[in-house]
């Protein structure tokens, strides 16, 4: 009976190796491009004129393919709803003491700079690499840090779950509202320059029409969503671990 797992492992190994060889033969037959062809060449050539944004990837995500970004925000929203529903039985949180005094003071000095860093990444998403997703995740990381260092009851006192709900729904409504403005102007859902948003001067902060506003909306949504996910999973941990430090042991 102890030989059957061994045979299964050998068979799995043979399957994975043969699958890898066949995949490599298929992928190596693709040609290596010398220059960009297809829709990507249109995006590279026309982004500065048609959207006014410098970051081509940000312009693709929030202007040319903004509808796909709306769908992705919905995926995050669904995951947050599912997790909050799975852990909804607990409606209480005990207090935990957090880490030592030195850690608390040190992190207390660092947190404003972290928040400023996250805001810069969101707001300058149309000029340099960055955008709503990256900055929103850094906001969520700041709340994770506060949970670990100060205890989850402190974090829920300063960022209560109702505020996170309102922020997340507000981000989704802002995104849809910008789209409906384009629809009301007669040029189509989520259109940018054609709907009347000012293009501004190329390379300045106030440019690219509705791309900064969509960045802020997505940043709010992603940040609040990921923070809610973490808080749902950690609030029960503190209930049984009053003698260890913080939310994550070790």
């Amino acid at each position, binding site marked *: 009976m102890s030989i059957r797992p061994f045979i299964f492992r050998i068979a799995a190994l043979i399957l994975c190796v043969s699958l890898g060889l066949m995949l490599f033969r298929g992928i190596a037959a693709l040609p290596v491009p010398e220059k960009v062809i297809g829709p990507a060449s249109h995006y590279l050539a026309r982004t500065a004129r048609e959207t006014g944004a410098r*970051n081509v*990837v*940000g312009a693709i995500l929030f202007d040319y393919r903004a509808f796909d970004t709306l769908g992705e925000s919905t995926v995050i929203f669904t995951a947050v709803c599912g997790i909050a529903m799975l852990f909804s*039985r*607990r409606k*209480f949180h005990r207090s935990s003491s957090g880490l030592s005094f030195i850690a608390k003071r040190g992190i207390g000095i660092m947190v404003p700079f972290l928040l400023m860093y996250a805001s810069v*990444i969101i707001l300058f998403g149309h000029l340099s*690499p*960055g*955008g709503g*997703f*990256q900055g929103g*995740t*850094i906001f*969520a*990381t700041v709340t*994770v840090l506060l949970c670990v260092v100060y205890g989850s009851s402190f974090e829920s006192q300063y960022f209560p779950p109702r505020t996170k709900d309102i922020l997340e729904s507000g981000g989704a409504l802002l995104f849809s509202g910008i789209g409906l403005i384009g629809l009301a102007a007669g040029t189509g859902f989520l259109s940018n320059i054609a709907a009347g948003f000012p293009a501004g001067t190329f390379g300045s902060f106030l440019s690219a029409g509705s791309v900064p506003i969509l960045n802020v909306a997505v940043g709010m949504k992603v940040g609040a969503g*990921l923070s809610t*996910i*973490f808080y749902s*999973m*950690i609030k*029960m*941990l503190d*209930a*049984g*671990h009053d003698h260890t430090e913080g*939310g*994550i*042991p*070790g």
Partner: protein
Amino acid sequence: MSLSFMIFLYVFLIATALVISAINDILSAVITLSVFGILLATAFAILQAPDVALTQAVINSGIVTALFLVAFSQTEKPECYSEEEEE
């Protein structure tokens, strides 16, 4: 970037993936997943993709590792099933 540096980075990436797959302690595997995420972000930066590198570094080495650690520490505490209703 020189080819030898790319080869070194990719060998390191494959070695980290083997460690994640083979090690038996879950905590060490999760920390190694964080290392894997940072190495992959370096590979993305060398492939001239700064947006993707930033997103990969923040999400996979920040949020996913934290969630793994929280879930893992939930499943190793002694079972306390009497607290279905509290207060």
